[in-house]
């Protein structure tokens, strides 16, 4: 059904009315009677032993209700914060995950790590109490440099050489052999800069304990409330899952940073029973900078072997990934299974070998951030390919095209453990070349040079593995949870529909997209579908939203549940029409049978299901409500071409992006407007990484870019008008043919920008972000 609100229509986002008029309901908007306020006391030292913490003055501060230290949680057997993905080293040994108490007990390992909490009648009272806490530390030299972390002082007793694991993927011997045969080798040493996620809504938690029912309720800013509940129940020992109700209401952005289970909600939910009153915490912006899990932060040496003719023969990558001070919830998977597996890119490189060592430093934990591993992989592959083309004096587009996996090669098994189901990379490239007016670049460059400016063009032909994830694949690789998604489609008596999903929107517009999907499939008005999410007591166990999984996995679950509704409804219709089930057709909300004028609407059948007068009660249960769990058979593989054109002010080194083209293959698209919005946001972040954003610690471990005075968020005037379009090779293994679009912009854009800047400057590499001074220095020749 192609209607104004059906699949393929750019329906305006229904949730936006409340978001932009200030009537959304976020965690901090929720207030409950008797509520108290929590303030965390955070380390100002990057590395120190805790000698003593004295809370007595805090406790006598007016308005202070309670003050706790890490030992208080330990006494109640509150567990450590776990890392949920077990990665193994080359030698088969398990990664080392150092103890991560929610509230530090013996030592603090990064600036911002909480070592005490104070609960007050007001935020101000709690802050007064926090200032009255007296702690003594033995300050130690922090480990700040990623590249030399393994040779630095040991941070955790259990982690020799500060190395969590030393992982590998691919065939080393075959790859080494490919390099021996190579006519040309391109190598690069690159740094993938640390980013800070900066969701517009800071993290928050409101914990309540109802003594009568012995039930805990946690409202928190989570991208995956069921996972939050699972970890708090099974690992942190708060309460059995059935006694723990996690609600994640409207969530204002996350980009991954709200996937994880953090110290703060753990402490708040625990403390609510301790003080017998609800406890609320909302991060201020400084806390967000210091304590949200950061992203990226890799140091990499990478080499590409090519034949005389320009065929890719082998790829060798050696990366050191910064984990920060502890292993955050999914940290270990990001530079391994979400990174090494993507090194084939869009190319037929026959031999690939990737080594990744994960190291600890005295910085905030690093975990998944929009793209999570795949932007880092794309950066490696696409910077290498572009550099190789320049070194070989061949056209950057043609070198790529020569090595593309072609449509007839699918399904294509890469040397790094993935099987791509479908794609048409040349189609995206061709379309992007046209938009970018590739052939006119030389004359545009000449014009810029006449004005004393430099102009450059850069490509990025990225691929991502999305729709996380086929559970058995993930579990065999060390995941601690299945990665299917749940759905329930509940038809109401009058034929309207409530959809429960385990995916959760933190800005993606699920209330619109999922409603479009269901209304289209059932032929009922879009307005008659409501989407419910973010509540462990309303949706079945699900895995939340990240990894561009919501439509591919969550949407597929909804589609399956909706199919079950249609199947049952047909049975009911057959009875009502005095026919057989296999005679009933359902189209556009109407049930018909052959050679008859009789028909039924979806609403009439729904009514009969709940008011079962004319209903086959001997064969069927009444009611019309179906559930589905969908476990994907494979990842999905969105891919595309991004082309960036920059112009550089030679006197100041300032880069302007004069054009940015993104042509992406997302398979089928439910709402093109929402998809375009997702691409815009991703591009802003990808460009932000290349030009503006940088999480910088100084050698003492202080976060220098710890506020908006210094951390450069991309703004509208930093960005050009994007040219965004799509191509489509529908996913072959999910019922909707969808691939997911949430991360593509952030995955593809960074390499395109840096390829353009290095092209303009005629340099091999430049550190990110390419600030004006960095570029100016490159122009000065040093």
């Amino acid at each position: 059904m192609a209607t104004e609100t059906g699949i393929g229509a750019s329906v305006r986002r229904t949730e936006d009315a409340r978001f932009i008029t200030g009537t959304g309901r976020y965690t901090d908007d929720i207030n409950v009677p008797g509520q108290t306020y929590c303030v965390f006391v955070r380390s100002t030292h990057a590395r120190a032993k805790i000698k003593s913490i004295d809370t007595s003055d805090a406790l006598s501060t007016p308005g202070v209700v309670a003050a706790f230290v890490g030992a208080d949680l330990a006494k109640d057997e509150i567990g450590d914060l776990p890392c949920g993905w077990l990665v193994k080293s080359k030698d088969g040994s398990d990664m080392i995950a150092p103890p991560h108490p929610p509230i530090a007990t013996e030592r603090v390992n990064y600036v911002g790590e909480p070592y005490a909490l104070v609960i007050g009648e007001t935020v101000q009272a709690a802050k007064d109490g926090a200032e009255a806490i007296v702690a003594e530390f033995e300050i130690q030299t922090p480990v700040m440099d990623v590249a030399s972390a393994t040779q630095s002082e040991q941070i955790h007793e259990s982690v020799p050489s500060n190395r969590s694991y030393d992982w590998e993927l691919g065939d080393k011997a075959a790859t080494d052999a490919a390099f021996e045969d190579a006519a040309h080798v391109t190598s690069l040493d690159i740094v993938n800069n640390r980013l800070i996620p900066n969701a517009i809504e800071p993290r928050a938690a409101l914990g309540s304990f109802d003594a009568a029912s012995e039930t805990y309720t946690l409202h928190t800013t989570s991208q995956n409330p069921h996972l939050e509940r699972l970890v708090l129940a099974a690992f942190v020992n708060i309460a059995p899952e059935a006694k723990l109700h996690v609600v994640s209401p409207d969530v204002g952005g996350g980009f991954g940073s709200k996937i994880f289970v953090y110290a703060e909600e753990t402490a708040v939910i625990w403390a609510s029973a301790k003080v017998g009153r609800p406890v609320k915490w909302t991060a201020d912006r400084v806390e967000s900078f210091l304590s949200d899990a950061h992203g990226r932060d890799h140091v990499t040496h990478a080499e590409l072997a090519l034949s005389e003719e320009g065929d890719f023969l082998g790829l060798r990558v050696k990366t050191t990934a910064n984990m920060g001070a502890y292993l955050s919830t999914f940290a270990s998977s990001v530079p391994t299974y979400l990174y090494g597996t993507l090194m084939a890119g869009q190319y037929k490189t026959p031999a690939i070998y990737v080594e990744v060592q994960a190291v600890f430093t005295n910085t905030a934990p690093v975990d998944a951030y929009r793209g999570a591993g795949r932007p880092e992989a794309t950066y490696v592959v696409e910077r290498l390919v572009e550099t190789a083309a320049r070194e070989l004096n061949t056209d950057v587009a043609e070198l790529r095209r020569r090595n593309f996996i072609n449509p007839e090669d699918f399904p294509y098994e890469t040397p790094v453990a993935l099987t791509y189901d479908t794609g048409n990379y040349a189609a995206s490239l061709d379309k992007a070349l046209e938009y970018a007016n590739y052939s006119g670049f030389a004359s545009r460059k000449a014009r810029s040079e006449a004005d004393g400016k430099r102009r450059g063009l850069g490509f990025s032909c990225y691929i991502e593995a999305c729709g996380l994830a086929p559970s058995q694949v993930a579990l065999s690789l060390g995941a601690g949870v299945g990665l299917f998604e749940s759905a329930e489609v509940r038809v109401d008596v009058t034929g309207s529909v409530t959809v429960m999903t385990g995916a959760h929107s933190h800005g993606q517009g699920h209330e619109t997209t999922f409603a479009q999907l269901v209304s289209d499939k059932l032929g009922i008005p879009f307005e008659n579908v409501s989407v419910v999410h973010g509540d462990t007591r309303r949706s079945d166990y699900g895995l939340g939203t990240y990894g561009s999984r919501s439509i591919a996995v969550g949407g597929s679950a909804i589609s399956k549940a909706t199919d079950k509704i249609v199947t049952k409804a047909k049975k009911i219709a057959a009875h009502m029409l005095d026919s057989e089930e296999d005679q009933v057709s359902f189209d556009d909300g109407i049930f018909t049978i052959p050679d008859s004028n009789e028909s039924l609407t979806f609403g009439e059948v729904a009514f009969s299901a709940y008011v079962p007068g004319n209903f086959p009660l001997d064969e069927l249960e009444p009611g019309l409500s179906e559930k589905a769990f969908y476990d994907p058979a494979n990842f999905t593989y969105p891919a595309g071409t991004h082309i960036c054109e920059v112009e550089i002010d030679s006197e100041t080194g300032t880069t302007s992006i004069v054009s940015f083209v993104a042509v992406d293959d997302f398979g089928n698209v439910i709402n093109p407007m929402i998809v375009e919005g997702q691409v815009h946001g991703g591009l802003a972040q990808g460009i932000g990484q290349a030009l503006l954003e940088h999480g910088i610690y100084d050698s003492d471990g202080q976060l220098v870019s710890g506020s908006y005075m210094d951390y450069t968020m991309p703004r509208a005037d930093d960005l050009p008008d994007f040219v965004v379009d799509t191509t489509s090779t529908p996913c072959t293994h999910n019922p909707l043919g969808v691939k997911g679009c949430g991360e593509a912009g952030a995955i593809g854009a960074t390499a395109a920008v840096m390829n353009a800047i290095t092209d303009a400057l005629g340099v091999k590499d430049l550190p990110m972000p390419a600030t004006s001074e960095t570029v100016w220095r490159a122009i000065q020749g040093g």
Partner: protein
Amino acid sequence: MYSFRYHRAASIEEAKELHTTSDEGAYLAGGMTLIPTLKQRLADVDDVIDLGGIESLKGVMTSGTSMKVGGMAVHNEVAANATIDALRHLASGIGDPQVRNRGTIGGSIANNDPAADYPAAVLGLNATIHTNGRTIGADDFFTGMFDTALGDSEIVTAVEFPMPSRAAYIKFPNPASRYAVVGVMVSETNGNVRVAVTGAGTCVFRASAMEEALTNEFAAESISGISIDSSSFNSDIHASAEYRAHLVGVMAQRAVSQIS
């Protein structure tokens, strides 16, 4: 934020009285600097004295040879009503729309942030600062980083700019905050050339070598070779002292080009 008493003064005299009698008082203009400082508990004051209700501190007025900006005039008012183009341009480039609707010229120069734009205008256009007790010349007003000649309870009531025959302001904005990494105001008034630089050093300053060169010949080329001593310049993650020194030259030349 620590607790404080809030007062909304109806007159300059009342504001001053409240300030003098307070153990620790602070005037509140738009609060663009003061409120974040209080919120982060970086300041602990007993009395916040809001100047927002005092009519005589508002407005932008031009009379013949000078333009007078009230101490409480917000940046957007100056951006809309100033009769000196360079000042209009400067005000329109401060921060973001919210900041421009709240931030004031009095608050800006009283604060004397080394990266603020207005100090370059005040010094570069040789303005006179009017306070509730006296007038202070631009060359005497900015005494150091976050430091001015203002006395303890002294209020900036207005800033008076002589009408220049030509003036231009060019700023290289900090990509994050949009304050000036370097901002240069170049002007000529009654044959006197001024070049004031903000952002580069710990306090706004005049580039006298440039002023001399431009007095000889008002052209970008005359200052292109002048090297700037960067030994006391600011250095941070956005710009090293050396880069700032380079930018002073570029911004100054661009300002001169615009008006020559």
